[in-house]
């Protein structure tokens, strides 16, 4: 389809309580720059149920305009309802570009929508730019497990769509919002939603594994030696209020659930602090955590590649280091 405007859209995914997922708000930061280069407005598209909080967040973080679809059928994400809503909005307004957070739901929705619109989609981007002349977005994304970066363009189809990894961009500071807010009355009939949630099982053991939203992550790898080797890691994580992560080697060995996996085949994370314990730093792992603000590595092998990306690297035995570090933090916090 042809673009009807030069606007750039950011799809703001919502939680069931109507708040925005971080990534949608994060994407408004590069969105501002990109919309300016494309010569259009930055538009946040908020879909969900009871989404006032999400709209407020988008407004405070730089959206020029916010399109809101609010209805009970959007409370729990379904591919069908969201695809119908988003496609009809795109068809009505014709943005030139659209960004979606590369969450599980975003990666479920993106290809469905782009395919229905017969346009291009670039997945899991970690860097973005816009060509001033053509307005083409240069979508940069890792491939081959992070060994290679590829910059993709979508020159002849609109809207050009990309999903962008959480944690890559930082939220801007909140300011007073001045966005134009447009409510769209879109409803999806029950029989158009072809999947149903039969049961929801929260993570077994009640453990929180929200890696993507975590501010601090303490991760273990092959060097922890076994499931019991995660105990000092969990102890430190508890003290720091951190989430426990793991490398593929530790997950493959069955020491910890896959939900904890950071890296190419796990989650991409961007916390303020990432502590890698006994992780050698295979490229697949580094691809998933290198955008962390501060990286600490603890490893016995002084030549481990993890030290190449670490801000602080301890060459030593994690079982000696972690308990002392945990103790020091406990002391300092009284």
């Amino acid at each position: 389809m042809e673009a009807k405007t030069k606007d750039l859209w950011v799809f703001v995914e919502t939680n069931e309580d109507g708040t925005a997922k971080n990534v949608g708000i994060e994407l408004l930061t590069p969105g501002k720059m990109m919309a300016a280069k494309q010569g259009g407005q930055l538009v946040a598209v908020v879909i969900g149920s009871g989404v006032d909080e999400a709209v407020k967040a988008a407004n405070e973080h730089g959206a020029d305009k916010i399109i809101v679809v609010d209805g009970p059928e959007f409370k729990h994400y379904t591919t069908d309802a969201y695809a119908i809503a988003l496609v009809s909005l795109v068809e009505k307004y014709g943005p030139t570009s659209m960004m979606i957070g590369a969450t599980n739901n975003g990666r479920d929705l993106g290809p469905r929508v782009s395919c229905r619109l017969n346009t291009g989609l670039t997945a899991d981007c970690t860097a973005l730019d816009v060509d001033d002349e053509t307005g083409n977005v240069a979508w940069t994304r890792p491939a081959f497990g992070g060994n290679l970066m590829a910059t993709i363009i979508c020159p002849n189809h609109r809207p050009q769509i990309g999903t962008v990894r959480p944690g890559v961009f930082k939220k801007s500071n909140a300011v007073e919002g001045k966005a134009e807010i447009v409510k769209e009355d879109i409803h999806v009939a029950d029989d158009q939603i072809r999947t149903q949630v039969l049961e929801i099982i929260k993570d077994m053991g009640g453990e929180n594994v929200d890696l993507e939203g975590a501010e601090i992550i303490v991760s273990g790898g092959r060097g922890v030696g076994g499931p019991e080797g995660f105990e000092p890691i969990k102890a430190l994580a508890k003290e720091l209020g951190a989430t426990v992560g793991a490398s593929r080697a530790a997950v493959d060995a069955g020491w910890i659930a896959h939900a904890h996996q950071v890296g190419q085949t796990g989650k991409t994370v961007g916390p303020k602090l990432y502590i890698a314990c006994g992780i050698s730093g295979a490229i697949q792992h580094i691809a998933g955590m290198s955008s962390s603000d501060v990286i600490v590595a603890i490893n016995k092998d002084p030549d481990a590649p993890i030290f190449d990306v670490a801000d602080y690297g301890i060459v030593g035995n994690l079982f000696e280091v972690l308990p002392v570090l945990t103790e020091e933090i406990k002391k300092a916090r009284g």
Partner: protein
Amino acid sequence: MNILVCVKQVPDTTEIKIDPVKNTLIREGVPSIVNPFDGYALEAAARIKDKNPDTKIVVVSMGPPQATAALKECLSIAADKAYLVSGRTFGGSDTLATSYILYNAVKKIEELEGKFDAIFCGKQAIDGDTAQVGPEIAEHLGYPQVTYGLEAELDGDMLKVKKEVEEGVEIIGVKFPCLVTFTKPAWDPRYPTVKRKLAANRAEIPVLGDDAFPDIDTSRIGLKGSPTNVKKTFVPQRKTGGVKIQESDGRASAQKLFELLSGASII
């Protein structure tokens, strides 16, 4: 029950290294494997067949002629029949064009094997990592989709899929026909068996080539039919200049780290 599993032959990305001088990928000598997520999809189908022995599992792959090796591996593990989609006009396809070709292949294979109740895919391929082709095939077919599946079982006229979500797992019910993409489950996929391996070696794998789909819209396939294209590729930069801490023992190192982190107000 008739299940189609889509598989891709990929380089084992864990074996890929960077040429430190030219700063490019070294692809020579990197083994080709069945994309692990596609292996999980095949295993999910095999588990349905374990409980429902009249299930037929067909695998399809789009790729160069060498991709028959991946299909033979699937036959030696659990698949009953395999098809290769391979043609010069398909080369250079992006995900949208690929999904359109595979959609045509599904229709063609259904003429030969009967209608598929479910199509299983890996959540993504480990070379491209896009996670797009599965949902796009579903869109072309107009089927409902469930992504991030861990397990699937038959329940009357419905498929019950255990789906990984950020907060845990959900059980999703979906009617046939449908498409499900699979991620890494808690269990390991089964190994090939000697008997199946020998049979797979002898199996004929039909090739659906350039002329297999007379009704295909050629403006939607190959490099020309792809809305996205690669502008450039490069090897990512690594950051340098971290602080190395190697004190006399673990305790001293830990204390030093704590001082540095708290000094920099990181913790």
